[in-house]
């Protein structure tokens, strides 16, 4: 019996959740043949999991408890790794938080994993949400946690519980307690209205950040999630802006003699890396956000754009046509030691370094089709995960196991904009899901883990 892996997992987990919210109820060690999903394998048969509607002390709490179970189920189902069972099939409708579940009732359903929980009102008006995750066949508890939160925050707790289940079952950090910033599109194709929009990763809590008066493109989160950087045509000149998400204050970055675009934050958030076009020549610069000092990193007559830092901040991958066609290059963070990494067929664009550092995602155009793929940082091991008429702009889930991108359909020429939607795909390439958005969508950026 060893509890070390679990407590280690809990330590890193609790570091990420809302302050003062976690309480360990009970911990038992995993059995020898532990229930576990290995997501490093190619295609994984989803694990059946029973998620019982959380018990509430009154009608309102019970309704919230039912919704929380639905949110947890939907998160886990979309990951492609879990298959939540229909609650109507459950034999034990209300397992008690204070007693062992009737394992036999769950074994006959062939449910190897069981989740249930309870919501009670704490004395200070907050909700106390508890849940337990069980290995039905080993008859052992895999996780048991409690959270305190404002009643309006229940969705977030559901995502945090889904993250805890994902982590306990896969050994990887979850990515459900995260948000997406993207560009919402509407209107005719030749006068497309584009607005910055923010939502939870499952599409809930959607809100627009800008009114569409200025064309905006390519928003990206700061590591703290307090800010986004993006391109805006406000004032008639395309420039990189930063917007504070709480105050909605915004401003252009730097005073450059030309168009600035394709911004991204450095891993520590102290710098932006972006492209500047002067006299038709696009180069990559870094901008220190405190001193506003700028530094030119490329010096080449080619187009150098779409830079993205490695998670350690020491290297930058970018897109350049310096060799005659668009390819991916890696350079040191100071601009030195440039080397090409993409050597496959086709043209490569929009490289994005995984937050784990192990892969670089990209857009590739080959044979009249667009593709989303990943390769190792040295360019080896290329794999295509999605393709179509137009797929573009991969962004990593913070655990580095899932990508989001946008998929645009061919335009029928009727004057309207092309249908464009956000999708997620995991690294197996077999689990592609549409992300619900209220209207057409493009340029998604996944947030880091909540601080």
């Amino acid at each position, binding site marked *: 019996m060893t509890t070390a892996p679990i407590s280690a997992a809990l330590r890193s987990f609790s570091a990420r959740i809302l302050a003062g919210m976690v309480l360990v109820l009970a911990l038992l060690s995993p059995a020898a043949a532990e229930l576990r999903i290995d997501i490093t394998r190619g295609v994984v048969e989803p694990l059946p999991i029973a998620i019982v509607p959380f018990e509430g002390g009154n009608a309102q709490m019970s309704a919230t408890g039912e919704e929380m179970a639905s949110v947890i189920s939907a998160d886990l189902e979309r990951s492609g790794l879990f298959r939540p069972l229909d609650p109507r099939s459950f034999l034990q409708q209300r397992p008690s938080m204070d007693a062992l579940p009737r394992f036999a009732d769950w074994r006959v359903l062939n449910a190897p994993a069981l989740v249930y929980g309870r919501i009670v009102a704490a004395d200070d008006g907050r909700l106390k949400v508890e849940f337990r995750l069980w290995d039905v066949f080993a008859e052992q508890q895999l996780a048991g946690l409690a959270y305190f939160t404002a009643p309006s925050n229940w969705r977030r707790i559901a995502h945090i519980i889904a993250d805890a289940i994902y982590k306990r079952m896969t050994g990887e950090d979850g990515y459900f307690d995260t948000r997406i910033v993207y560009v919402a599109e509407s209107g*005719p*194709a030749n006068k497309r209205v584009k607005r910055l929009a923010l939502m939870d990763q499952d599409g809930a809590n959607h809100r627009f950040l800008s009114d569409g008066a200025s064309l905006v493109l*390519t928003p990206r989160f700061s590591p703290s999630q307090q800010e986004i950087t993006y391109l805006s045509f406000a004032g008639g000149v395309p420039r990189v802006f930063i917007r504070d998400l709480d105050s909605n204050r915004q401003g252009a970055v730097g005073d450059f003699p030309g*168009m600035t675009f394709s911004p991204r934050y450095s891993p520590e958030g102290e710098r932006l890396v972006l492209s500047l*076009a002067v006299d*038709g020549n*696009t180069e990559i610069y870094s901008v220190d956000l405190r001193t506003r000092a700028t530094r030119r990193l490329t010096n080449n007559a080619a187009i150098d754009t*779409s830079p993205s830092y490695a998670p350690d901040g020491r290297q930058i991958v970018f897109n350049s046509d310096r060799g005659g066609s668009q390819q991916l290059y890696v350079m040191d963070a100071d601009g030195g030691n440039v080397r090409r990494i993409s050597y496959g067929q086709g043209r490569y664009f929009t490289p994005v370094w995984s937050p784990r550092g192990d892969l670089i995602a990209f857009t590739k155009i080959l044979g009249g089709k667009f593709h989303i793929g990943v390769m190792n940082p040295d360019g080896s091991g290329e794999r295509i995960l999605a393709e179509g008429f137009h797929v*573009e702009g991969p962004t990593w889930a913070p655990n580095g196991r899932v990508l989001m991108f946008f998929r645009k359909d061919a335009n029928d*020429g009727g004057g309207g904009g092309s249908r464009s939607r956000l999708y997620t795909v995991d690294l197996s390439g077999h689990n592609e899901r549409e992300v619900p958005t209220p209207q057409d969508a493009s340029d998604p950026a996944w947030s880091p883990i909540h601080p």
Partner: protein
Amino acid sequence: MLRKWLMLAAVVVAVAACETSTEETAATGASGLGGSGSSGVSTIPSGSLSGQPYGSTGVQRSALGNPAEVERELVSTGDTVFFAFDSFSLDTVAQGTLDRQAALLLKSGGVNVNIEGHTDERGTREYNLALGERRATAVKDYLVAYGINPSRIRTISYGEERPAVVGSNEAAWAKNRRAVTLVVGGTAGS
């Protein structure tokens, strides 16, 4: 390649300018036209200012174009040039169009232009912004080589964001790979 060609063009244009001496400077007399910088066509308060005489005191004379009229002429002479896929070279058709644009601008002092660079949808958003900027700059360089004062020309790239023709086919894409010259009003200088 392009640079070499542009230098050659600059020489040719310089010779042409000597022969015709079309564009003269007018450091005086052009104030009050306003409307610098911002997009959209600004209107001149009253009448046409073109051909207004300044006497023979050694001050050079310039024909100040009425921006609205120049815009109309620009449209009729061809305000748009087209590009091959992922290219920013100006073919002979494009050069012919730009020759006419340049001639018009030379005789329309004080009128400034914005050159909008556009691409088709068959690239990524960020690369296309850079490509649109390349195209707009190629047009600007040509007009400057012809003799237009670079301070009269601004460039902006819209990348793939503002197609002229809506549709996902080669005919539409060919019309969207373009640079458009737009009059944005007049200021002092030529």
